[in-house]
């Protein structure tokens, strides 16, 4: 995309009121205010001591608009490298890929602009949301390398939903959500957002983790029950307007990656959930809160069916092959990724793979 297209799309968004293709009555049953916010997120990357040729991959905002997010374009530059945008064929994850020859210091910048608005589902009223493509639903019911849907996962999900009618996906999803809030915990010692190896978690009764663990657990358990569900990998971009200090970040968001989850409910579309953030409130809000604290109870209720959109969704991808990579698949793409001739770098090692991500609200 050249710079002129980027500015035209931003100009349209700055007019602010109704974005193209988005009717304000499309989801009349939602309670969330119909206000779009526009953000700009800048990712700057530097590989400090590259060995040989280097490749870098960065996630972009969702490539397909959702009711809570619209992409307004991406702009990039690579100092001495080749750079371009591609989309993975299975999950449509947008990936900016840069490659640098041996001897060139790898540096690149990605600027993404996007609009978000809060989303909430009113279960008391049928929303008549358009039906999802059956092929998409099949994709998000399948097992992945890190999310099996048999064995201990199915044993666990069966136990959780015991007594609930088999076709009552809403109550099953709710039961799974509540089970995760009640039985898991946010572990401050988990590195980054976690790894999402939910089979290991269940087999070893190691139910502590962070968002990529706890929300992946929701997704796997839901899929084991035949409910289409997906992780949504992203990053926080603003403080929470709802009074939760632990659930927002603005300015330097380098370490503010956050994964959420959705499940599909016929008639309602994709329903947002975030049990991991309930556990974050318990662990971190004002130094920690008891599970029956009013703030926790409010978050617990709100985060089944709604999201405050102070957050950018990148993609839904699992088991992703990075374009041009010489290494295997990655479990998910939420952090910048890099490889040199020495191998894949550690995305959480700033001494060798340095990046900063900043966010500002435009409108």
């Amino acid at each position: 995309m050249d710079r002129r297209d980027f500015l035209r799309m931003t100009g349209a968004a700055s007019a602010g009121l109704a974005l193209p293709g988005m009717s304000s009555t499309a989801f009349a049953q939602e309670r969330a205010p119909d206000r779009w916010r526009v953000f700009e997120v800048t990712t700057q990357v530097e590989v400090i001591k590259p060995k040989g040729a280097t490749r870098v991959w960065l996630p972009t905002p969702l490539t397909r608009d959702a009711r809570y997010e619209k992409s307004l374009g991406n702009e990039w530059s690579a100092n001495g490298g080749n750079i371009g945008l591609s989309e993975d064929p299975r999950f449509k994850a947008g990936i900016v890929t840069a490659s640098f020859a041996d001897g060139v210091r790898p540096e690149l910048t990605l600027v993404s602009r996007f609009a978000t608005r809060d989303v909430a589902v009113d279960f008391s009223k049928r929303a008549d949301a358009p039906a999802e493509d059956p092929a998409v639903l099949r994709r998000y019911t399948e097992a992945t390398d890190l999310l099996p849907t048999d064995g201990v996962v199915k044993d666990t999900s069966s136990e959780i939903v015991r007594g609930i009618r088999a076709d009552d996906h809403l109550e099953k999803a709710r039961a799974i959500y509540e089970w995760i809030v009640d039985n898991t915990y946010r572990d401050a010692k988990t590195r980054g957002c976690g790894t999402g190896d939910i089979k290991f978690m269940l087999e070893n009764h190691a139910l502590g983790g962070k968002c990529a663990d706890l929300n992946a657990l929701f997704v796997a358990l839901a899929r084991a029950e035949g409910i289409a569900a997906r992780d949504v990998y992203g990053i926080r971009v603003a403080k929470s307007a709802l009074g939760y200090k632990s659930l927002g970040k603005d300015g330097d968001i380098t370490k503010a990656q956050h994964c959420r989850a959705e499940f599909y409910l016929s008639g309602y579309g994709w329903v947002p959930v975030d049990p991991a953030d309930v556990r974050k409130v318990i662990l971190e809000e004002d130094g920690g809160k008891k599970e029956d604290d009013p703030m926790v109870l409010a978050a617990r209720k709100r985060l089944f069916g709604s999201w405050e959109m102070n957050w950018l969704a990148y993609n839904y991808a699992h088991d992703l092959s990075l374009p041009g990579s010489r290494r295997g698949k990655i479990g998910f793409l939420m952090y910048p990724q890099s490889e040199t001739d020495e191998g894949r770098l550690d995305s959480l090692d700033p001494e060798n793979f340095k990046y900063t991500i900043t966010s500002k609200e435009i409108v």
Partner: protein
Amino acid sequence: MRTNRWIAAAVAFAAVAAFASNEAPFKTWTKPTPALVLPDLSGRTVDLRDYRGKVVVLNFWATWCEPCRDEMPSLQRLRARMTGKPLEVLTVNYGEFPQRIEPFMKRENIELPVLLDTQKDAAREWNAGGLPITFLVDAKGSVRYWVYGERDWSQGEPLRLVESLVNEGGHARR
């Protein structure tokens, strides 16, 4: 046979004790032993098969893993305690490069062998889904037990389990 029953009883006891203390118990390994061929910090290729005749305590760790750091001195103590006996402690670093590992080892005064799993391939083969995770390999080269979470390897049940494998009858390779 009597020795194997004793070991099984020791594992069962450890499981009960661990449950009572919230530690994950030692578990019996029921799958084939994966291969392990990795470079060490000097660049030398190390193959687990070369240690047949010795019991191997194989520990997966990372510098950023707090319980791993807490556990390492006890692995050093175990190794020192078992000097002259057919035992080796091998550590496998998960996902990091020498430029990060070497300063850490120096700073923490750790002198254990370190194998480099920079691409986490070995961790995948060994189902190391969390850290620290330790595998006890008998003198015939078969994984017998594994445990997730840090332990004090220089005393108590972990030491007894290691000693029982050593006493099973491996002999040092000449």
